[in-house]
């Protein structure tokens, strides 16, 4: 915990430049939850098995429990706190009944966000591409179908929004 004796870490967190000192062995998960008190990122195993700790590093999903914090140096990190309540994925998860206990939800939404930003125009939530994108995130409550439905719903909303913004 002796963060003061650690190395400087500078990165962009949810769009804002951050700078803090962290011990070299600290994981990104520990730094986010314990040093920065951003507890929206969850832990379910701390061994890279469940995906609850998923955050985006330069837009790509990573398990923050397996990511040494120093890997974020100079890069951009998105946590669930950086996703607006109005984001189509957040709304769709609520509308589709995709949130039960909610513990996997932040990680699920971030994996889905990375996926839709890359392949949003081709995804309807039903095909294998959505399943592949979410296959690193475990959910024990839903049986996954509500989650896939939410991703499909969000994809449609995002397509509509991007079409409207072009007009």
């Amino acid at each position, binding site marked *: 915990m002796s963060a003061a004796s650690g190395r400087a870490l500078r990165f962009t967190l949810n769009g804002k430049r951050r700078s803090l000192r962290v011990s070299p062995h600290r994981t990104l998960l520990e730094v986010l939850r314990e040093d920065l008190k951003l507890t929206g990122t*969850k832990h379910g195993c701390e061994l890279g098995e469940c995906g609850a700790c998923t955050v985006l590093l330069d837009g790509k999903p990573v398990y923050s429990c397996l990511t040494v914090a120093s890997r974020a140096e100079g890069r951009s990190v998105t946590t669930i706190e950086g996703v607006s309540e109005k984001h189509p994925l957040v709304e769709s998860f609520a509308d589709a009944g995709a949130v039960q*206990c909610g513990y996997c939800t932040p990680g699920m939404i971030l994996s889905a966000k990375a996926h839709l930003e890359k392949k949003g125009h081709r995804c309807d939530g039903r095909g294998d591409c959505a399943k592949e994108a979410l296959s690193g995130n*475990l959910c024990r409550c839903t049986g996954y179908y509500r989650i*896939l439905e939410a991703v499909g719903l969000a994809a449609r909303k995002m397509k509509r929004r991007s079409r409207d913004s072009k007009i």
Partner: protein
Amino acid sequence: MTRRYKYIGRSLRKIDALAKATGRAKYTDDLSLPGMLHGRLLRSPHAYAEIIAIDISRASKLAGVRAIITGDDLPARYGIIPSSQDESALAIGRVRYVGEPVAAVAADDEETAARALELIDVSYRLLTPCLGIEEAAQEPPGPDGRLHKAIAYEFGEKPGSAPALERTDLFFYEGNTHLALEEHAALAVWKDGKLTLRCSSQTPFHLRQIVAKIFAMPEEKVRVIVPSLGGGFGGKLDPFSHDICAAELARRTGRPVKFALAREEVFYCHRGRHPSLMRIRSAWAKDGRILDLDFEACLDGGAYGSFGIVCTYYHGALQPTTYRLPHYGFRAARFSTNKPPCGPKRGHGIPQPRCALEVHIDKAAEQLGINPVDLRLKNLTTPDSITVNMLRIGSNGLRECVEKVAKASDFRRRYGRLPHGRGLGFALGSYLSGAGVPIYWNEGPHSRIRIEATAGGVLTLYSGATDIGQGSDTVVVTVAAEVLGISPQRIRLVAADTELTPLDLGSYSSRVTYMAGNAAKQAAENLKAEVSRLAGPRLSFEAALRIALEKTKTLEAWGSYTPPKKFGTFKGSGVGVSPAYSFSACVASVRCDCETGFVRVEKIHFAHDIGRALNRACVLGQIEGGIHMGLGEALCEEQVFHSSGLHRKPSLLDYKVPGLFEMPELDIHLVESNDPGGPFGAKEVGQGPLIPIIPAVANAIYDAVGVRIDSTPFTPEKVLEALDAKARGGSGRLGPDRFPEVLFPEPIRVRQDA
């Protein structure tokens, strides 16, 4: 006539969905307090050993260590049910499973606490562990014996007619665990003689009672608060070592103490599905009527009692809710073994016997030459009937459930006629909408709800029920909103806080929608009546509320739910009693690869008698989640151990659960039988849907490749072994072939006219 509801039956957003989806919702481990210490538990590396000495002197000297406690510091015995007070927070004298807590440390940070554990010296004298039912049953009876509980019953009268078919089958159901995604956590604050415990508990009111007893203090000096809870499935019902050690360490240090378990530790907390070895005998008339059923079970309980006695009774309780049985014998024994304690996992003690029974009936159907669906239809229970074991069934949509899945899967035409490697399997199930008799016997309500209206028309609903993800918060608010005719968003909720909310027994036995839902309905009706008494009847609720509040400033209304009295009067007649039963029917469609033994479940047709769906999306979510967990139990999940007693798979990677790609196509039908006692007619859905999945898959495997895997899970290794055996001329059955000699007590005889 169908009534039109404004909110009931719609797929409304859950009231906590946005808070959870944005990460704002706080789970126990998301909380931290100034000056907070971090706790860790030292766990036994041995399955069975005497503790000779514990030396904490090296650990105590480590900088940053604030307190260390061992078994002697917390001598009180406790357990979740009154008849099993056999646990202690830290082992005293002996350890009984690998992972049992032996000492607890509070330190400035987690790393220091972990280092301190390494410096605690424990010397053990190893004893020979007992790890299975066969071994346990061979040990001599007596106070040091392994037999924890044995029960025997005989219900009804043997019919005089000679049976056309009699058969006996054995089945083994392997243990498995809940695997809620949130790891257990507890945060204790002890200030001015009062303990506040925030923790991941499904039963805050039971926990308050137990913790108060352990610390010999009045219950009002203990406040249990459940923050957001990341899944329970029964795994967070018991009081746990980390809850009690957090409290004791907070008391000693005067500082807040938090425990957040690692995933491996959650496997040691367990309280999951009991491994169960079962023997069924049945007798049938030529036309397919069941004449007699005899059911025996040996349960592997693990090291402590937990809910085990209840689970033992449940093993025999619900077979008669689906089938009319003229005569029914039931005997069960639970044994103590040196493994993490088993307890209540989704379905409690029902999935094992239901699986054995549904597979057994499938075999009988083949011998009788009757289609498995039609054989069930000849024996189904009816609405408003009394079972042979004195359970009162009210609404019953089982027949409709059976017909729906049979039709949707075209079962009668396709069963037995699909190409080799593909098969259909049928099974049904039933569950309680809440236990009719509480764990701690008393005549009081099982749920109470208070609604308060204060200045400005602020409405606050106080519910003691715990939302474990199933949506109970949404249910109580929606029910109240429907009665009041206002938007659910108008109602603020305070839940699961023993100081602020009225008593609720907790989130288990699928009781919350029925019981807390009824209490919410009554509270809202009482509020509405009071408001119209004060303001006159013809106004809208909002307008009337304004006028009423001008007169009184604050208003409150209470609602409660007490289940009907049980029907049976014999000893043990309290288990299985429920104000309403859910019913499900399932057809599984599988493909078996004969080269690899791999079973792929391609489609599940499922019908569930829900009474009434209060929130359609939530109900479907519960069914889909139940199917998912059932498939895990059927295909891959098992809590198994090395011969030393070491857990083989205490991680998410090794303990396989079905992922996204393993989920089959689902075809779900809701049957709304409109239960006369349920809130707006609703019954349970949290646990029932898991139950028929496992036997439906077993029966489908037989239809696909002609082998009987009479032992869960149905892994590729087992399927291949059975296929090989069959190819060599064997029966193609893989499963147990012996049932231990058990000295059951004389049966309690119960007849309907008694």
